[in-house]
Each structure stands twice: as C-alpha cells, then as structure tokens.
C-alpha cells in the first residue's frame, strides 16, 4: 500500500511508538512566539530544566503584540528575548526585523519539504504549503519540543482535497479555501491532514498555497499540505542553491515526499472552481460561508488587510489594484498591516503603500495584533469588520464585534463603499 506525504514524513522522523497509533517524531524545527512560549520558558525554569535541544533549530519572533502595548506584553517580549539570548538562539526576530510568524519564517527559508515543525499557534498548518508537516500545538507540546526536539501525534490520516477547473479573474485562494471549509464544516477534517492537490493548486504561487493551508485548521485539520514542485523549488532556491547543483536535482530530492499513487486517504473532496465566485463568512464560524454577492450591502465599520492568511505581497497588490486612485468610504476605518518588513519594503518600492495611504488606509507595522483583538485595530462592541484574516469567532477582533472573512480584493472593495462589496464593480472581473 502506498503512502501519503504525511505518512512518508512521519516514517522518516519516527522516534518511538509508545502505544497504539501514537508516533513520537523528531522535529526539524520548533517555532516560537511571545504569547505561548513564555509559560513554557518559566515552567522549564521552575523544573530546573531551562535547556533547548538545539538552538539552531529553534526560531523565535515577537509578533502578536509589537511594539508592546502595555507592561504585560512588554514582559512577554522580555521573557522570550532574554531566553533567546541565554541559549544562543540566533534566529530571533525582534522590533525592526519582526513580522507575522507564518509569513516571516517561510520568507527566511526556514521551511523545507519533508520537514517536521511545531509551534504554539494553530495556524502553523500554513507551512504545509512547502510539503512539510507543520502542526499547531499547545504550550506543553512546545515545551517538550524545545527541551527534547520531539512531539507525539496519532499516525497521520489524510484527506485529499482536489481542486479542479480554473479560477476566474477576481477569485482567489481565499475564496477557494472559504468554499472548501464551507463544504467540510468546522470539524470536517479533525484529526486529519488535508492534502491539497489538482491543477488549481499546481498553478498557485507559494503565497496562495500558504493562504490555502493556513485555514486547514478552520476545518479542524492538523496540517494542510501541498506536494513540493518547481514552484516550491523556485521559492526556496536562494536558500538551497548551495545544497543542490540544479533546481531539477532539488525537485528530485524533494519528490521523495510526494504521495504514492496508491496512497490511502480517509476521504476525497473534489471541488470544481470554474463557477466559484468571491466568498465571505456571515456568522461566527468559519464554515458559515456565502457568496459576497449575497451579503452585499451589509454595513462595516472597519476593513482589515493583513495577517498570516492574507498579508503577503500578492495580497497587497490585489487590494491596491482595487483601491488605486480611490478613497475609502467616510464611515470606514481602513487598516493595512503588511505581514513582514520585507513585504512592507516591497510594497513601498512598488508604490502600493502610497496607494493605500492615498486611499485613506492606516498602515501599521507588521503584527498579528488586530486579527485576534489584541492591538492595532480592536473592534468596539457592535462593530463590524471586513477582514482578510482567518477567524470570525464571536468577539475575535474585540468583545461584541463581528467579523466577515473575505479576500483582499473583496475587503478593498468593501472599504471603498462601506458595505460588503464584490470587487468586480471596480475591476470588471468576476
């Protein structure tokens, strides 16, 4: 019987099988941020075990609330900062170099096909876009990962999501994943890895694949995975060119993690996107999804463009194309948070930041902040936000606030009109 991508990765990293289908695997990298790591650090200290398994395999960032907004968040940063220094963790990203973890770490070349990665953050599934197994975990798993470089999982079961057809202009990876979550439901992929495959995924950029994999957790998935291909190799080439003579050689090496043709999947969902239109959420669960057109006219108070889902350069380009030469509706607060300093600088060079600012957007530094209602754009009770983020839970962006998830194109169009709007009225697409 053939194997899935996740099964191959687990097989090559297996350390122990303590009982049943539990597999303890060796970790290639442990990612850390300042919200979930401090308690792991203080607990290790209290146990007299303030050690790290390998400082070169730990990557840390202060991203959720940065710059610190108060004494408590300042202390969280301080704990991580001092810990990184104490243990010689060189890949630590602080003020000036920091950005949203799931955008920053891929950009730094820290994710490779076949890697195993954990982080105390549910959207760690994003990194599966590179053909890696990457899973969000709690602080205790993180703590053991930091200390021992291992983590325990059930043997991975995989569901296959085949995306066929061709996206019409104006419809993006975000619309695809919202549609998929709408079909699967919020626990449709629980305890399973989602392998995204098919011609639409093959044609996607790494940025779009990250958007897809990022929201696997919203269907309960452990990880979203895309098979590595030449697009993956092209993205990684600056980081791997000393390792491989040619791109073809890199692809051949990475292809050992491709799924076998007779691999066994628990489920298969085939989605034809030929007729897909821009989508948005309407309730307090990410599987409550409707075409944007059916929500058009719903008033919003804020539009947020950013996050590990849609704060990358191609997202900013799409939104700027809608906003160019126009101004946000007077009743709307527009907030843009480029996900990393590199993205911010690219957007500056390309003139995108000017377009956003001329349109009346506030441009913040890279941070997770508003997405989870911690800083830089928290909603007041009764307010509504059109957001390119990943969760529309009740109160997610501020107690009593409501969130509609959508693509950067739809969010930009909504900013211009003050009500949920399909971007095609500005771009002529979709």
């Amino acid at each position, binding site marked *: 019987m053939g194997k899935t991508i996740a099964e191959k990765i687990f097989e090559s990293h297996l*350390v*122990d099988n*303590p*009982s*049943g289908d*539990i597999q*303890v695997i060796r970790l290639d990298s442990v990612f850390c941020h300042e*919200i*979930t790591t*401090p*308690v792991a650090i*203080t*607990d290790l200290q209290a*146990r007299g*075990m303030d050690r790290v398994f390998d400082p070169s395999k730990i990557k840390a960032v202060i991203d*959720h*609330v940065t710059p610190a907004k*108060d004494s*408590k*968040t300042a*202390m*969280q940063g301080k*704990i991580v900062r001092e810990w990184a220094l104490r243990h010689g963790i060189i890949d630590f990203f602080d003020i000036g170099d920091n950005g949203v973890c799931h955008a920053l770490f891929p950009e730094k070349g820290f994710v490779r096909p076949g890697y195993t990665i954990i982080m*105390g*953050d*549910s959207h*760690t599934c994003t990194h599966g876009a590179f053909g890696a197994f990457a899973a*969000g*975990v*709690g*602080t*205790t*798993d993180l*703590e*053991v990962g930091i*200390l*021992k470089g*291992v983590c*325990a999982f059930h043997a991975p079961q995989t569901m296959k999501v085949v995306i066929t057809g061709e996206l019409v202009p104006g419809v993006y990876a975000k619309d695809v994943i919202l549609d998929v979550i709408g079909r699967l439901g*919020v*626990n449709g992929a*629980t*305890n399973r890895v989602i392998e995204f495959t098919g011609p639409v995924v093959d044609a996607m950029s790494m940025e779009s694949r990250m958007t897809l994999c990022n929201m696997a*957790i919203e269907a*309960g998935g*452990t990880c979203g995975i895309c098979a590595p291909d030449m697009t993956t190799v092209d993205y990684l080439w600056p980081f791997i060119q000393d390792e491989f003579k040619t791109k073809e050689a890199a692809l051949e090496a990475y292809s050992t993690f491709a799924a076998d043709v007779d691999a066994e999947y628990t489920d298969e969902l085939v989605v034809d996107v030929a007729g897909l239109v821009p989508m948005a959420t309407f309730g*307090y*669960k990410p599987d409550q999804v409707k075409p944007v057109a059916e929500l058009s006219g719903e008033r919003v108070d804020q539009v947020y463009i950013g996050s590990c889902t849609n704060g990358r350069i191609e997202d900013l380009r799409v939104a700027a194309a809608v906003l160019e030469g126009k101004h946000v509706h007077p009743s709307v607060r527009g907030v843009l948070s480029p996900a990393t300093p590199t993205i911010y600088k690219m957007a500056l060079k390309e003139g995108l930041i000017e377009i956003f600012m001329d349109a009346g957007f506030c441009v913040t530094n890279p941070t997770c902040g508003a997405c*989870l*209602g*911690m800083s830089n754009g928290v909603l007041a009770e009764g307010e509504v936000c059109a957001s390119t983020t990943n*969760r529309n*839970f*009740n*109160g*997610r962006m501020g*107690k009593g606030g409501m969130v509609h998830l959508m693509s950067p194109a739809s969010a930009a169009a909504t900013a211009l009109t003050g009500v949920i709007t399909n971007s095609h009225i500005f771009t002529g697409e979709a």
Partner: protein
Amino acid sequence: MKSFNGKVLFLDRSDINTDEIIPARYLTEITKEALTPYLLEDLELAGFDAKRDIAPAGAVMTRANFGCGSSREHAPWAFEMNAMNIVIGESFARIFKQNMFNCGMMAVELAPAVIDDLMARFSGRETELSTDLATGVFRFTAGDESLEVPFEISEFDRALVEAGGWVGYADTHY
C-alpha cells in the same frame, strides 16, 4: 494524579471555541493563576452565567468539536485553575484534546446518543460526577438518581494522566 470528580457543568452546544473559553485579551498573562476569573467569559450560551455556574463545578459535559480554533493551552489552564480537570463531550478539536492530556487532565469522548441521554437526565439538575479511572466508569448522581457510564481512553492518554502530563512523561522517556 488530578481529581476527576465534582459537580457537572452542562454546556449544551457544539463548536465551543478556545476564544470563548479564554478570550485573547487575557493571553498577555504569564501565569496560569491569573486566568482564573476569566474562564468562559465570552461563551454564547442561553442560561449560562459564568459567575454563578463555574465556581461549584468540577467537570464539564458538552457536545461536538469542543475546543476548536486557537491552540492556546490557556483554555485547559483556565479550567485547571478552576479545579475542573475533565471535559466529557461527543468530540474534541485535536489540539485542545492533546493539551488536556498534556496537562494530566482528561478530555473524554462518549457517543452522541449517550451524551443525549445524560443531558436529558441530568442537565439543569445538581449533578455529581465520580470517575473510576481504573475500571473506566463514570458515575453520575443527581438526587436519588444515579447512572454508571463506561468510558475509554487510549493507553497513551492514560500514561499521560498518570505521569501528570507530557513533560513528566517525555522527560523520563526521551
């Protein structure tokens, strides 16, 4: 080993997420103790009153996909700090369930029909749970009505409970 006995808090809803269990605005705390007063502060559930219902409870019974969303272990910690070490439900989000056992706590699945029956019999009544981990039996008691329900947890989850969590287990094994 922690106690898995106490008054049962019935949360009769599916898809209760970790933002509802402990909102992100409290994630700036760096001690588990500081989370104590905020448990379930944002829960949307008719008839639920955090101040009235949480303090006396020692166990939770709920429906499907409990603990979905954020990976924050602050959710199990907020239960732990309120001396609620066990959640019984139809199903759990993967990370939440793992976090519970990693803390030496329990997240135990019962069949939907069994949960239906237990909710029908006991919800709204002062109900006491006592857990016999050795034999794998829950005993629910309200007034003079008492019901025994068998449950199963995996060998690995049992080992975590007995080790007091994953750090203790991993430190002796790896």
